[in-house]
């Protein structure tokens, strides 16, 4: 939280500045595994243009902050993906893009890893098969939100749930349905 003075001075904390810089220059490692990689390329290319969000794909894990797991992770490639994750400098984040990397997707087989979170911790799951570029941008924005709030574990938008009467609470005049 920054405090702005009338004289043009902004007071803030070092953590705030670091977090602001980090969330606005997320550099992903350019690792493409399967179909989702095509949509990831589309997100980076002319129409959706992630450069305007400060997202520039890097060829080396040493220069990257984010690992976008784009595609099916099979057992044989899993140790190498973990190697790339280990080579990335801290702080680092992982976006699991698509159904395959999140839970195995449509491939419940002997060769496929059933969820990339079994080998590396995941920050944001993006659903879809494959997710559209808009969905991936949504995932990146969720990650930015998470970095801003510095929360541990999962962060998602809380959807208010309407209370439904249960069997122990017999329907009365006060019930939300009004009968």
């Amino acid at each position: 939280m920054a405090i702005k003075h009338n004289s043009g001075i902004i007071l803030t904390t070092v953590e705030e500045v670091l977090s602001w810089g980090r969330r606005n220059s997320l550099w992903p490692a350019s690792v493409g595994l399967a179909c989702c990689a095509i949509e990831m390329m589309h997100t980076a290319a002319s129409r959706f243009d992630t450069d305007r969000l400060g997202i520039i794909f890097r060829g080396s894990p040493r220069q990257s902050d984010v690992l976008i797991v784009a595609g099916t992770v099979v057992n044989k490639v899993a140790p190498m993906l973990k190697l790339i994750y280990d080579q990335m400098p801290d702080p680092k984040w992982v976006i699991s893009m698509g159904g395959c990397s999140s839970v195995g997707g449509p491939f419940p087989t002997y060769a496929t890893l059933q969820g990339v979170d079994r080998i590396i911790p995941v920050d944001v799951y993006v659903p879809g098969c494959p997710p559209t570029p808009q969905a991936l941008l949504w995932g990146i924005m969720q990650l930015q939100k998470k970095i801003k709030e510095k929360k541990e574990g999962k962060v998602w938008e809380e959807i208010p749930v309407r209370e439904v009467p249960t069997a122990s609470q017999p329907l009365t005049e006060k019930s939300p349905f009004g009968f």
Partner: protein
Amino acid sequence: MQFSDKKTNLWIDKNKLEIVKKSFPDVKVEEYENAVFIHVKKDKLIDFLKFLKEAEELQFKMFIDFTCVDYPFHTPRFLGVYFLFSPEFKQRVGVKCWAENNSLPSLTGLWKGAKWAEREAWDMFGVKFEGHENLVRMFMWESYPYHPLRKDFPLEGIADTYLPSLNLRPDEIPAHNYSPYHTYVPSMEDLEETEKKRIQKKAQIVLNWGPLHPGTHGTIWFLFDMEGEVIKDCDIILGQLHRGVEKIAETRTYTQFIPYTDRMDYISALCSQVAFVNAVEKLLGITPPPRAKYIRTMMCELQRINSHLLWLGTYALDLGALTIFLYAFREREKIMDIIEGIAGIRLNSSYIRIGGVAQDLPEGALDVIRHFIKDFPKRLEEYETILTKNRVWLRRNVNVGIINEEQVYQYGLTGVVARSAGVPYDIRMIQPTDAYGEVDFDVPLGKVGDCYDRYLLRIEEMKQSIRIVAQCVDKIEKLKDKKFIASENPYVIPTLEEVYNSIESMVKDFNLRIYGEQAPEGEIYLSGENPRGELGFYIVSKGEGHPYRLRIRSGAFYNLQIFPELIKGRTVADAVVLLGSLDPVVGETDR
């Protein structure tokens, strides 16, 4: 509308079978409507195949595919199936041979293209090949103990490793099918062992390129044995995207398998669907209505432009031209929007159905396509202005990776790679499916067979695709018959409207979705022209709702196989160009 009776059956004719029987009297012939197989004994297999390859009247000199089928209650257990093609007479033949003592003679002496197919059969079925130069696993790692495509191996594999999710907190209730136990994930030592079995260091250094490198177009793992900058020896490790699609096919109904064909060759999803659905339709005896045929052809060609544009963008990006990448993706977005408008999904559009297409074209779709095909040739001209006579582009491309006609037959190369060597092998021409027999188009052929030829061919193919799309748009507009799916056929799932309005359709829909299309007993091999080469489907049906065995003959798999031979004696910089011009997609090579 009548579709012309061009020759659509490519299988060996009666006269040639007589010639075969004269020389080898004890062979048995197994005939189906869309496949002809010759049964041979194991000890005569090599002689027989050599006869097929070299006899003047036969000349089956092009290697198409090799695979195995597992019959657990038969001795011997495994059946090897070979597919050959005669470019002279435009005919195919299948050869079957039982693998006695779980082994077959290796074909690498006759066709170099058999090398990887035999490795795959060893990996998936555990069939040994006598005389193979280096029989290692194709897709799995070397210390993997099972052979997954055997019938007694479960689809889910054997979950013997404790590998819980790192994101699951103690207070969280996991999903209903979550299990902390998982199939074995190899360690780095396992992969190192796999690597060492592939290549013996003879020169200075073994360089690893990939598997997670942006230049390898996916997850292909190259091993280069190098002397200075010159590559002396090369091998390729595949399987970094092996998802077990062929095993999945054995447990899914034919309709359920359509989405998996998308995810195999994800750049040209519609072409893969059409190739698969055509094979199933021939098996079930369904004829789709003319409107569906034209829609399919139109969508296929749009997808072909889309695929070649991605190739152009990434190929130019690999050679340092970022501008073309951004331009090509601009046009790709337009095609993706058209596909999304028609099919509902951008990339993996499961739009084709058995018996037709999922839904009719929406209002205004043809206008959008017409606008696109009017605009696109100008854009293509722009790309050509930048690249075709560019001095850097010429230096990188001309005379790199020259393929000759003999290599095409030896390795079973198809698609643009074969046509660049001057071999007129285009499935759209020699076995026209859908409306390809009705439209007018040319198949461009190369003269030299180098990377520059393949670039020119793909640009020319895009222009031809525009021609086909334009003809299809005109034809669809004139068609009075609005029927887009042959839903009166007992094997075709009815449309939603019919299901809601009649009880018979509802029962039929329920039966087909639960029990699948009960295909009659038989076998079929049918292929389609993918942007990457011949994509063939060999289906063995036992009269059940799902295929007994489904073999996918992948064009990219065989095209990639020539890479080690072409790269020998060249530098690493050429490896990028050569790989880009072969244009493999890992989803299809690994399946």
